[in-house]
């Protein structure tokens, strides 16, 4: 079983026909489906619809006008920079951590796995605060940074750091169980047959883990682009300079420009829907890959 919030891809069994003795009466079944659907519609479908209804509340013209605002574009650019740095870094980290943990034995392995998960249990606000304590004006490195005229907090580097922190475990936690389950016999065989370490990784390991890797990257990216609390603490909320898309949504909302806020929010909602679609697709590809291995 897994503690993960981003679960390892699991097989969705088609409901097999059950005997009458282990099936619920049709009335109960319909009631349970009804309750589940009502809960999902109330908490998930309604908010999803609402974003788009509000975003287009003043017509498509206003919608595109809100999106073409240069301040919005600056926010989009900063979000892309933050995700563009944090996702590849955490991806390299995830691959390294999974390689070391899955292919070798060493002491303190389970402690290391727990420590990798740590950022998930830290409140985003506290994550931001941690970097303020290290890099802020009164922080450990504050005076030194000030003397060298380097700005981290209330500037772009702080936003990137906070984003790296909150998305830290995503790729690693997908890859570690996946690579542990696959063992190392295939890689050892490749080595014995004369493949270099890098060849072994790219030709044997990578094809086996590609869908799991994609899955982790998709979730990592979604969180990187959507992070709010941590980024809010380290951003100076300077319009056009240190505002990411979620921070820009907050500013528009607090300025009572609700339609504008929801228009920009709809971009993030599109991103969420694409994420869910890609994630489901990657899960299915991984099932196909594994199914083939099992029958072969």
């Amino acid at each position, binding site marked *: *079983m897994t*503690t993960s*919030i*981003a679960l390892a891809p699991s*097989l969705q069994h*088609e409901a*097999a026909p*059950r*005997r009458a*003795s*282990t099936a619920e*009466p049709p009335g109960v*079944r319909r009631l349970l489906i009804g*309750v*589940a659907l009502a*809960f999902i519609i109330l*908490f*998930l479908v309604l*908010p999803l619809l*609402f*974003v788009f209804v*509000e975003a287009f509340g003043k017509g498509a013209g206003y919608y595109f006008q809100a999106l073409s605002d240069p301040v919005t574009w600056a926010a989009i650019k900063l979000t892309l920079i933050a995700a563009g740095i944090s996702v590849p870094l955490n991806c390299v*980290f995830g*691959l*390294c*951590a999974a*390689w*070391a943990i899955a*292919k*070798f*034995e*060493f002491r303190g392995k389970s402690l*290391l796995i727990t420590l990798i998960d*740590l*950022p998930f249990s*830290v*409140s*985003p*606000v*506290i994550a931001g*605060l*941690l970097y303020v*304590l290290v890099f802020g004006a009164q*922080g*450990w490195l504050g005076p030194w940074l000030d003397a060298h005229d380097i700005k981290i907090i209330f500037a772009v580097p702080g936003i990137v750091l906070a984003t790296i*922190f909150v998305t*830290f475990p995503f790729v690693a936690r997908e890859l570690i169980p996946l690579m542990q389950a696959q063992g190392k016999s295939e890689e050892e065989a490749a080595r014995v047959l004369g493949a270099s*370490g890098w060849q072994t*990784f790219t030709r044997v390991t990578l094809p086996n883990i590609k869908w799991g890797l994609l899955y982790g990257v998709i979730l990592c990216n979604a969180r990187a682009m*959507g992070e*709010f*609390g941590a980024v809010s603490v380290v951003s100076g909320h300077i319009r056009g300079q240190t505002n990411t898309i*979620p921070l820009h*949504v907050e500013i528009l909302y607090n300025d009572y420009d609700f339609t504008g806020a929801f228009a920009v929010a709809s971009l*993030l909602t599109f*991103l*969420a829907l694409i*994420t*869910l679609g890609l994630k*489901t697709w990657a899960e299915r590809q991984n099932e196909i890959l594994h199914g083939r291995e099992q029958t072969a």
Partner: protein
Amino acid sequence: MKNPARFTGQARVLPGFRLTLGFTLLYLSLIVLIPLSAAFISAASLTWGEFWSDVASRQAVASYELSFGASFGAALVNLVFGVIVAWVLVRYRFFGKRVVDALVDLPFALPTAVAGITLATIYGPTGWIGEAVAPLGLKISYTQLGIFVALTFIGLPFIVRTVQPVLEDLDPEIEEAAASLGANRWQTFWRVILPMLAPALLTGFTLAFARALGEYGSVVFISSNIPMKTQITPLLIMTKLEEFDYGGATALAVVMLVVSFLLLLAINLIQWWASRHHRTELA
């Protein structure tokens, strides 16, 4: 460490152990461990009196009560509905099942700020639901009830996603045995299936509770952030930061971090207990 063959024998075949573990430890230290230690070291520079007056002030205690209470309530609601959703997704066929299955993860994928402004508006006085419940004298947005709604949204996927794989792997023979011994469907569920789901339920509940405890983005819009009334602890930390009261913010952060670590420990213990339980069952 006493047995070099254990290391040489394995480490020689596959390369990159030192490089990958070295990078992992370096990156982990720089990004996570050193900043985390900063919170504890900074808090240690406060005097005991300062620390205590920050973490035990009336405002702080009220924020803990609200954070813990609302998170607990939200996780409880998700416990009940999460089991129903997981059950329906695993056991039944119905129209739109795949879409519902994918949609369950929406709270993970949707940025919290978007969830925040959406829920605040829907449950607000002129929103779709806020307007409908207003004649009943019910106010949701900008009250404690609103915080509870936001935390329920945030915690929704945890229980579904921890219970789902366990339900899928459940051996149908166990249920058949219960039925053939004369148990009705409800007894089978209550006495046979539910106990087998217990570790997953506990894990999912704790994950949802821990997530709700630290949540900020979705709550900040739906809460009016009134001290003693609608101020959860992360909001109080943020308020202190905006007042440049870094000492007070750090003291509260340390309390929250300790709670988070204890919850993480609890989750690991549940996992350990569940896997041991499972093994003795098989033996």
